[in-house]
């Protein structure tokens, strides 16, 4: 490492740590809440580790539940960082360039959550080393789950290392060398699409489950993620804008809104196309969709869930499209929140659970997560938010200092 100032990588790490320990009282209280959530999650998980997955609501019929649902949804959130990366690095959009690090921080947090959800879902988490190529046996390229392990970890590395390099350069007071990181940015754009497609293929590739075995799965995944992810980014940016000294251009919100609207509309069109296919001429294969939307034989746990989700989805999309508040945050932010939650409901439980109901032998059971699953999930969400805040907090400080240093801070 070339020496420009007497500062080095260790002082970089130390400063990041130090900055993280500082911050106002509300910030610390917020962190305490996160820690409490994680502790509760650990408690719930220790319960599950002791008794096995029987303490969850899953069964031999609904063999994947809340964990895998959240995992699936969060892959989309992680991939959505590409919607900042693409304009920022490829088109050199200055507005996006300022916030792209936040997007990448979010992606890292989402990926940490994804990997945690997979781990807590395993029956033998301690055997997970069987997956590591070299010491384990990795069923590649046959198993799509093996692909998923590769793409998720690769994306995590890319999204951690590129910002790390840029931040470190800025910390040292020099410009990050674009020639060095540009190839990796290209790679991460391609990779973002791949984590999506591979995760969709996980389900799409199973002829045993007609509800998933549907070529629209991958594209719909992309569309819904590019609506939900940027919605979350808007919410995070708005939070940063109002609670820190780091100010974000109005333009960023406008552009993100457009991305969300386009994606959300494409998502709705594809949803409509799926519903048409399932219900215009219902076949044997429509039975899971029937269960999801209308219930079967008195089992209708998901019916209110999915209709709430669709309702919220349509309303939020309309609001964002017609923009009644003229980009006023009072309208924009709630609409983004509603859209985000609607897609979480639909792409999480609404996608995974009905794929397993009824069983291939026609048996119908309902699924409800238990307190253990909810607790572990809460813990993982707190972990993810903690990771994001630990990454973004020092990143913003470094960026602000660098802006002052180079005098390029825009007012």
């Amino acid at each position, binding site marked *: 490492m070339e020496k420009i100032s007497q500062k080095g990588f260790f002082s970089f790490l130390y400063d990041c740590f130090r900055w993280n320990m500082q911050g106002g009282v509300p910030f610390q209280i917020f962190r305490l809440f996160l820690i409490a959530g994680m502790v509760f999650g650990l408690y719930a998980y220790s319960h599950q580790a002791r008794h096995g997955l029987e303490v969850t609501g899953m069964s031999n019929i609904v063999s994947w539940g809340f964990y895998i649902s959240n995992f699936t949804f969060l892959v989309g959130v992680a991939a959505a960082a590409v919607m900042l990366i693409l304009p920022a690095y490829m088109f050199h959009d200055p507005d996006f360039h300022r916030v792209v690090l936040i997007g990448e921080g979010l992606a890292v947090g989402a990926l940490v959550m994804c990997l945690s959800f997979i781990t807590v879902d395993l029956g033998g988490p301690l055997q997970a080393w069987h997956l590591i190529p070299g*010491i384990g046996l990795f069923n590649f390229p046959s198993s799509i789950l093996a692909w998923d392990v590769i793409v998720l970890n690769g994306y995590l590395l890319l999204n951690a290392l590129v910002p790390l390099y840029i931040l470190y350069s800025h910390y040292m007071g020099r410009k990050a060398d674009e020639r060095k990181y540009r190839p990796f940015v290209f790679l991460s754009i391609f990779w973002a699409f791949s984590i999506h497609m591979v995760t969709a293929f996980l389900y799409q590739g199973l002829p045993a489950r007609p509800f998933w075995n549907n070529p629209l799965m991958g594209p719909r995944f992309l569309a819904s993620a590019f609506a939900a992810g940027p919605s979350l980014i808007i919410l995070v940016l708005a939070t940063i804008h109002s609670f820190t000294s780091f100010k974000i251009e109005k333009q960023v919100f406008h552009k993100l809104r457009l991305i969300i609207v386009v994606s959300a509309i494409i998502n709705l069109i594809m949803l409509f196309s799926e519903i048409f296919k399932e219900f215009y001429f219902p076949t044997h294969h429509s039975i899971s969709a029937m269960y999801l939307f209308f219930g079967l034989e008195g089992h209708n746990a998901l019916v209110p869930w999915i209709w709430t989700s669709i309702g919220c989805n349509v309303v939020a999309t309309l609001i964002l499209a017609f923009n009644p508040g003229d980009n006023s945050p009072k309208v924009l932010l709630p609409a983004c929140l509603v859209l985000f939650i609607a897609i979480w409901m639909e792409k999480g439980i609404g996608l995974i659970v009905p794929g397993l109901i009824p069983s291939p032998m026609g048996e119908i059971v309902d699924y409800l997560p238990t307190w253990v699953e909810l607790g572990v999930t809460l813990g993982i969400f707190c972990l993810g938010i903690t990771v994001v805040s630990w990454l973004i907090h020092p990143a913003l400080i470094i960026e602000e200092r660098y802006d002052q240093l180079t005098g390029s801070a825009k007012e």
Partner: protein
Amino acid sequence: MVSRKDKEGQVKKKNLLDSQTSRRSFLKGASIAAAAGSAALVTGCVPGAEAGSSEEFSLKWEEYFKKHYRLMTQEEKDETIARLVKLAKLQYDLDIQMSSRPPQEQVLYGYAFNITRCEGFMDCVKACVKENNQDRKSKTQYIRTFEMEPGQLDPSTGDGKYFHEVPVDNKFYMGVQCFQCENAPCIKACPTKATWREPDGIVVVDYDWCIGCRYCMAACPYWGRRFNWGKPEIPQEEINTKQHYLGNRIRPKGKVEKCTFCVQRTREGKLPACAEACPTGARVFGNLLDPDSEIRYVLKHKKVFRMKEELGTDPKFWYFID
């Protein structure tokens, strides 16, 4: 935690059979650190966390680092079986026999189910549960029987939960289980190759290699797989002590299991427990490569069909009508 494990590790080094390979010692070094970190949290699954004695602990520790069954030499298979037998003695005070008997040459197992004869008594289910040491608490069953309306042939339209006297007039019965697909989606799905098809056609699971991700369960079009949601519970006196490594040995919690055509019996030349228990003779089992076998007779002379033929899974399980 660390120091305890280190101590145990030394005890182990002194009195255990195995020869150290570099791969193993690397793994051990790496894992002690990792296990120590997570031990407090995952006491449920750390090998030996519940161990009563140091011998039990070191056996479990050894077990934790063993290879995939298919990569083991015969010697290593014998070693792991010796450890499992000892563990059964220590944990359950049971004298079990465990085999690792390989497939016989020139054998490919096939099964045929006579829908005309089956009367829904479910003796097969009971025999299977007993033979294969299935968890009694969760009522795990590999075989399901469905009471069918005339005019239907798809079990998903039938009633799988009948609790009345059988046979009922004008109904018929169909049993389903894992069909030992030749082109099995479950095998393709497994990320760790913990499930595979043996040369005699039986699809097996290495219970110790499985990580419990349940992707294979989602992938199976016939609902042939079951998961050990908790630790299996079987009354001591009902445990079948004649076991096979790939068959009916007692499964750890958090692993997937399935019908193995009773590998522990069939490789010894016996019938699977279900076929033996059936009072009506509806179940035909045999070697597909033997032209004189009953199964070949059925396939040649009866009208047979298989389930979900359109998926191309090529099951080794046929239904036929007299």
